[in-house]
């Protein structure tokens, strides 16, 4: 990728900035091969194939890029694991199940349980809330809204994706908290018999607040990707459904949704990726407690990324190792989610590959 500046050089001043070796490899219009004179279609004997062509150059470049990604990933993994292992060995409690985080003490004791649970629950809330709304908006934009409305609305949603997460975090803590608290009281009153909505309070800075803020952050990603996916439904398939006597919604169910399913799953996964890794918005909105609890509305909750942000400053060596270990767990969760999604996408793959 470092070679690309030569592109701008090329566009302004021909191949001045290109080294001689490049000139041979990349051709730059003058072919070094045996194709010497027109006609292009050839006339005399079959020319030899050139040894150094654009083709070879690009193959080398892309192979190098691919190899580089692998090297970087392996390097990062080695670094993280080498930091994490000593910390976990120093842990006096079970890293996976213990529910406190005191890695900086003389006898370090810390576990990932509360954090992982909080990460998963907030992300789940975010998806459960955001995905149906996002799909609804995407379908509205692509199939129901008049174009005059769809274009500006789509733009506004894309803007929402550009808002930095700290803004969402502050907004969630300072403004959104009160409505969520009222909503939590209501849920507790009517659905308190469900453990997730039970408890005595206080309500407010809860997994619910964090999850809902995440939902708003995930919404634009899922919406704009799904919109693009739905737009790609072949018009002739939509017409086929309509010509069979489908209503608009039936047409969407028959032609648009099945066709877009893999794309929508990918969009949801990207949204989930953002939710799982979200740091500052959750650090600001969660109650930061250390109880293992499935209660969504009581003040409390914590998450892996938020804990990293909150604890990194005062961490000693073991503390940093412990945080890195928690980061690896987050990585593992993300990986599992992604692989599951891929499995779902691949399952009916032949149906898409054969689609002309």
């Amino acid at each position, binding site marked *: 990728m470092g070679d690309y500046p030569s592109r701008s050089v090329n566009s302004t001043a021909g191949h001045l900035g290109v080294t001689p070796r490049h000139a041979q490899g990349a051709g730059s219009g003058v072919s070094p091969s045996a194709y010497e004179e027109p006609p292009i279609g050839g006339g005399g004997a079959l020319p030899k194939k050139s040894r150094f062509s654009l083709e070879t150059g690009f193959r080398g470049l892309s192979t190098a890029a691919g190899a580089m990604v692998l090297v970087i990933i392996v390097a990062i993994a080695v670094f993280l694991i080498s930091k994490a292992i000593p910390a976990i060995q120093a842990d006096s409690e079970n890293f996976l199940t213990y529910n406190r985080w005191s890695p900086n003490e003389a006898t370090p004791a810390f576990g990932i349980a509360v954090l992982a649970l909080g990460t998963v629950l907030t992300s789940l809330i975010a998806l459960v809330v955001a995905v149906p709304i996002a799909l609804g908006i995407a379908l509205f934009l692509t199939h129901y809204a008049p174009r005059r409305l769809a274009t500006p609305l789509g733009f506004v949603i894309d803007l929402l994706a550009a808002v930095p997460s700290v803004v969402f975090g502050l907004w969630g803590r300072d403004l959104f908290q009160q409505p969520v608290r009222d909503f939590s009281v209501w849920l507790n009153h009517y659905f308190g018999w469900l453990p997730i909505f039970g408890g005595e309070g206080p309500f407010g800075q809860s997994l619910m607040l964090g999850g809902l803020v995440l939902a708003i952050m995930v919404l634009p990603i899922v919406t704009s990707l799904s919109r693009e996916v739905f737009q790609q439904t072949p018009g002739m398939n939509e*017409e*086929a459904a*309509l010509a*069979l006597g489908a209503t608009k919604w039936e047409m969407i169910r*028959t*032609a648009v949704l099945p066709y877009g399913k893999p794309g929508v799953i990918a969009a949801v996964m990207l949204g989930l990726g953002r939710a799982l890794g979200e740091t500052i918005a959750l650090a600001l909105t969660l109650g930061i407690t250390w109880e293992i609890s499935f209660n969504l509305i009581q003040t409390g909750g914590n998450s892996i990324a938020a804990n990293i942000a909150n604890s990194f400053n005062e961490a000693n060596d073991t503390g940093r190792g412990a945080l890195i270990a928690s980061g690896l767990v987050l990585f593992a969760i993300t990986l599992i989610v992604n692989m599951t999604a891929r499995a779902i996408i691949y399952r*009916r793959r032949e149906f898409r590959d*054969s689609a002309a």
Partner: protein
Amino acid sequence: MAKRIEASNVSSYYGSFKAIDNVSMTVEPKTITALIGPSGCGKSTFLRSINRMHEVLPNARIEGRLTIDDQNIYDPDVDITAVRRMIGMVFQRPNPFPTMSIYENAVAGLKLNGVKKKSLLDDAAEKSLRSANLWDEVKDRLDRPGAGLSGGQQQRLCIARTIAVEPQVVLMDEPCSALDPISTLAIEDLMFKLKDRFTIIIVTHNMQQAARVSDKTGFFSIDKTGEPGRLIEYADTQKIFSNPSQKKTEDYITGRFG
């Protein structure tokens, strides 16, 4: 099982552009009618006006009157989906649903209309695939993707999908234009077979095909681009191809036959 289509003074518009002007014709039940004419003269537009697919496009509208057995197709009280179920359509390019198997494609229309019983669906799938001359080729791989068939097979699958809902009228817009001569003949045979049960209107650029399959032929033409297309002559196929009454028809037909 087959109904009469009657168009009187039909004009179709795309926004302010008038694509066809004042078309009137009557199509009798259980006949095959061919629509021919140069490219851009509005054959597809007219065909799509018949089953109200024209209005799917933004700003598209029609004027005039279209009836099916004396019921007004464009009556504001009429359920559009019912019209489209009654008047099925096969498109120029085969368009099976890419996410569905052969079987699911064949019964897609029935499922849309609320048929859920497996035995009914199985019967309908077999019957329509047999009618479309496709059964023998696909009976062992009904669960394979419909889009994995050859172009000609896909088009016959689309025909099966259309006739599975037992429409009264079947509209075909150049159904053979992407097909080889053998598949074309297979589809022509099929049309003869289907004529017993359906009213068929087919758009074609293939003059021999029009002459072979149709009972009546309508010739559309256009004076120059930007002008609306008009129905120049509509008569028995025999007459159109042997003794057309309009000079334009004769020019078009002889021009093609050389």
